[in-house]
Structure formats: C-alpha cells, structure tokens
C-alpha cells in the first residue's frame, strides 16, 4: 500500500520500504535525505522543515501518480518529515519498487527532483551564527516561468 505522508515523527525507513514490496518487484530503490553537517564549508547546527501539509500530501500523491503513468507497474511511497531536525536525522524517504532495476533508479530520481519543484515544504537552516530560509525566499531570482515547471500533466 503506497504511502504519501508529511509527518512530525521520526520516519520508519523499513515501513516505507515494505509498503512498496510486491511479488512482481525485483528492484527497490530507496532514497534517504539526511541533514548534512557541512555545506560548502558552512557548518549546519540544525534544520527546521515547515510544510503546507494538506497540499504537500496531495502533491506527493501526484508525484506517485506521475511515476505510475511514466513507468507502469512501478510502485512508490514518499514520506517527508517536518519540524526541527539534527545532523544525520532523516528528512525524506522515497521508496520505489519495479520489476527491473533501471526504472527503480529513474523513478526514484524523478521523485526527489519533483519534490524539490512542486511540494510546498520549506527548510530553514540554523548555523552557529545565523539562520536562513532556503529556497530564495527573498525572491532575488524568480522561477523562470513564474511557477515550477510541471511536466507530464
């Protein structure tokens, strides 16, 4: 049973993986996004994720739908955590099961790229001496088309 969820709790990686296992699947690709300590030499202390949860879950479901249209027979689950996270905490888990390995990699990669385009989740980074919402909140650059690109539908 596929899962598309925003949660404030720790993500159970096994539960996400198990949700996509099925007898026709021979390959399961899992992507886990964790909080990285250093980005371009800058030290992160913690992160805070905020979402528009009801819409974010709809968008996650939509990504799952896009995947099953692009790669028939491929099952996916996506769980994204919100709230305050520490170094190495898991922020997002994507699991994709497919008959053959190529599609499991492609669909998983597609899912993470789409999350970064269309799912209303925001990350605030806390450093030793400051904090900032990531994602060009101050609009110094615009989306080229005024909104995220929406392929496939």
């Amino acid at each position, binding site marked *: 049973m596929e899962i598309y969820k925003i949660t404030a709790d720790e993500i159970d990686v096994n539960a996400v993986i198990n949700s996509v296992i099925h007898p026709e699947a021979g390959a399961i690709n899992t992507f886990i996004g964790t909080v990285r300590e250093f980005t371009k030499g800058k030290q992160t202390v913690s992160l805070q994720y905020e979402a528009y949860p009801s819409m974010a879950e709809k968008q996650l479901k939509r990504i799952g739908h896009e995947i099953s249209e692009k790669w028939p027979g491929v099952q996916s689950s996506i769980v*994204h955590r919100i709230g305050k996270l520490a170094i190495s905490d898991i922020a997002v888990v994507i699991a994709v099961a497919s008959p053959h390995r190529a599609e499991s990699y492609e669909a998983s990669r597609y899912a993470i790229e789409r999350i970064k385009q269309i799912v209303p989740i925001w990350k605030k980074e806390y450093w030793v001496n400051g904090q900032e919402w990531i994602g060009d909140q101050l609009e110094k650059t615009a989306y080229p088309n005024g*909104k*995220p690109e929406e392929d496939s539908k």
Partner: protein
Amino acid sequence: MITVLFFAGQQELIGEDKLKRNESQMKISDLKTKLMEEYPKLSLQNTMTAINEEYAEDDRIVEDNDIVAFIPPVSGG
C-alpha cells in the same frame, strides 16, 4: 470571505500565518498588489499561489470561501 495563508519567510515577515479578508471575485494578481500595499516589506511578485491546495495562475479569479496560499520557492527534500 477568503482565507489567505503564508509560509516560511513570508510568514515571519508579516508575523501572521493566516489572514481573513472580505474579498472575492478578484484576480490573484490584484490580491497580491493589495497585500503588498498593506505589508510594504512583503514581495509576492514572483510567489506562486495555490487556491484550495492546487497551483493557480495569477489571472485566476478568487471566489468566496477560497483558501489562497502563497507558496514561496520550496526547499524540501
């Protein structure tokens, strides 16, 4: 009556996560202009908008009871 939602940096900037406004039959672009007059520090020019949890273009008309959410550039994952 419409509900307007703000998130992340924009929410911190105006100090509110939600506004109620007696507006309807108004284009999103006009609603943006009105809110930017009310909160001079707020920039919504290139912010995406969702109406009732679906992305909507700036020329879309906001109807009574709509939930309008301003979606600054996302940074999940």
